[in-house]
């Protein structure tokens, strides 16, 4: 451990002079027809790094960014097999909130939300955080009870979260049918004013730009083929008891003492390379968007019973999501039945928008765990850390996960905020209770 920490401390910091984004900058450059500098640079792969982060999505990039900003560790490579943000980071429905069910969950996501709140100025990139409020509808007494449970837990942690009645729901989202005679009557909702949406790609680019300015290298089109581990119990010296020595990629080998796995749906494929078993299965999560119409839905609406969530972008498109596909697969082909169920359920909620047209559907891969909570921190292989198991919550947790994982890497200790999410909990049988609220999704 000592050697790792010393190396991390000795990490060089290579600041660069970034061009600040601002209205004035737009005017000046516009007037002079001057170009903006590259948002991030490309590099040759070096022989060794202090830290290698696998996965160039929000989690990996945030981890890199906070390693540099909070801990001065910059000899870091982020390896991305496609382009930055090509996985779940660019495929999610960009909803953020902190109204979780468990105290652990609330504390964690609240930190994430506060990082999102100041992100535009922190990263000097407008991530267009739209704090438009978040409604989780209840169609049954049981769901209403769960909403109240969440609200009460939230209130005790000073999170704005209240259960409201159908007439208040109608005021916040006039397009919803709150009449009592529908198949799924809206009996009330959990209202979470701080929740909202954000421009997911901007979060990716903002972290990448910030990391680049601080000397961290992002390598796109760089696929990890193997992780070198010595001294472990398993075949080839991998597995528990082993120690990470390097990474093999399609662009060459790298030696490194620390590998952080931030690969969401591909998490087990990467952890298999180190000989670490995970309680994760990969399921696609599909989403869809309609053609734009003039804005009529001012808030985020979620219905757990109907497995749907919807928000309207500033461009006027409705963005929809649902629950993960029923069977494990790495295929992201998407399905017709997803759009059928989705449309049927949306029309139960908003019967008057049948004329809107679905424009595009897509899928991302989710890393589902048995308790709908992540697997974070150290593993039985020294130097191999995980930030995975996010399921459908990964985007919301991006900033705080990066921050906490960076702290874990830098201090070689598990930060308190992620203590409940350690891999060991599965062996001990102490699962996190977020499962209680899992049925209500986003």
């Amino acid at each position, binding site marked *: 451990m000592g050697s790792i920490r010393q190396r991390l401390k000795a990490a060089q910091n290579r600041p660069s002079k970034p061009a600040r984004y601002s209205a004035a900058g737009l005017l000046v450059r516009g007037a002079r027809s001057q170009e903006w500098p590259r948002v991030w640079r490309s590099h040759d792969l070096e022989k060794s790094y202090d830290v290698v982060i696998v996965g160039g999505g929000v989690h990996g990039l945030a981890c890199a960014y906070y390693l540099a900003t909070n801990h001065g560790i910059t000899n870091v490579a982020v390896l991305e*097999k*496609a*382009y930055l943000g*090509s*996985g779940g980071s660019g495929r999610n429905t960009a909803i953020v909130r902190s109204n979780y069910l468990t105290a652990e969950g609330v504390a964690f996501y609240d930190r994430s939300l506060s990082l999102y709140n100041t992100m535009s100025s922190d990263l000097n990139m407008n991530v267009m955080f739209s704090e438009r409020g978040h409604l989780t509808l209840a169609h049954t007494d049981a769901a209403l009870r769960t909403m109240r449970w969440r609200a009460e837990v939230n209130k005790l942690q000073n999170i704005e979260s209240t259960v409201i009645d159908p007439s208040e729901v109608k005021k916040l989202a006039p397009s919803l049918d709150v009449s009592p005679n529908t198949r799924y009557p809206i009996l009330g909702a959990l209202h979470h004013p701080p929740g909202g949406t954000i421009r997911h790609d901007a979060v990716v680019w903002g972290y990448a730009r910030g990391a680049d300015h601080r000397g961290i290298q992002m390598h796109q*089109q760089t*696929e990890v083929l193997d992780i070198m581990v010595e001294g472990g119990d398993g075949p080839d010296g991998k597995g528990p008891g082993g120690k990470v020595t390097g990474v093999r990629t*399609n662009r060459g080998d790298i030696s490194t003492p620390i590998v952080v796995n931030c690969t969401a749906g*591909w998490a*087990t*494929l990467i952890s298999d390379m180190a000989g670490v*078993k*995970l*309680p*994760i*299965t*990969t399921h696609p999560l599909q989403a869809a968007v309609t053609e734009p119409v003039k804005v009529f839905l001012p808030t985020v609406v979620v219905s757990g019973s109907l497995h749907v969530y919807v928000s309207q972008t500033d461009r006027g498109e409705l963005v929809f999501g649902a629950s993960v596909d*029923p*069977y*494990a*697969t*790495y*295929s*992201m*082909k998407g*399905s*017709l*039945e997803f759009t059928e169920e989705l449309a049927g359920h949306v029309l139960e909620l908003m019967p008057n928008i049948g004329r809107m047209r679905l424009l595009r559907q897509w899928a991302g891969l989710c890393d589902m765990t*048995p308790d709908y909570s992540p697997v974070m921190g150290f593993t039985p292989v020294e130097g191999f850390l995980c930030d995975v198991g996010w399921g459908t919550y990964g985007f919301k947790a991006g900033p705080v996960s990066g921050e906490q994982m960076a702290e874990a890497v830098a201090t070689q200790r598990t930060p308190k905020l992620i203590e409940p999410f350690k891999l060991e909990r*599965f*062996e*001990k*049988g102490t699962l996190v209770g977020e499962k209680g609220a899992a049925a209500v999704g986003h």
Partner: protein
Amino acid sequence: MMLVPCPHCGPRNSTDLHYVGESHPRPSVNDVTAEEWRTYLYMRDNPAGLLTETWYCRSGCRQYFTAVRNTATNEFVNHPLPGNRAGAVDPSFHYVSESKTGSVQPTIEGAPS
């Protein structure tokens, strides 16, 4: 919509079935350690390749069966067997899914092919 080869009904739409998940032999409950038991309960192989898994033909014959599917292509590679027995990969398995006849591998766009 994927066609799933039910050993009793024949090919069925995947929405007719319920996916149970990865098949693992259940340890003997009387001499298992906590660690072994929880590995059985929670840990998964989750390969991007051949996966032995259990399905339940919910809208059809209501039978459980064990199939082997390539999770990268969603191709079934043998005639599933009833119950929890898994058959070996059968190269002569003649099935109607297209992945059998084409060599289409899923990739993420923008990734090196």
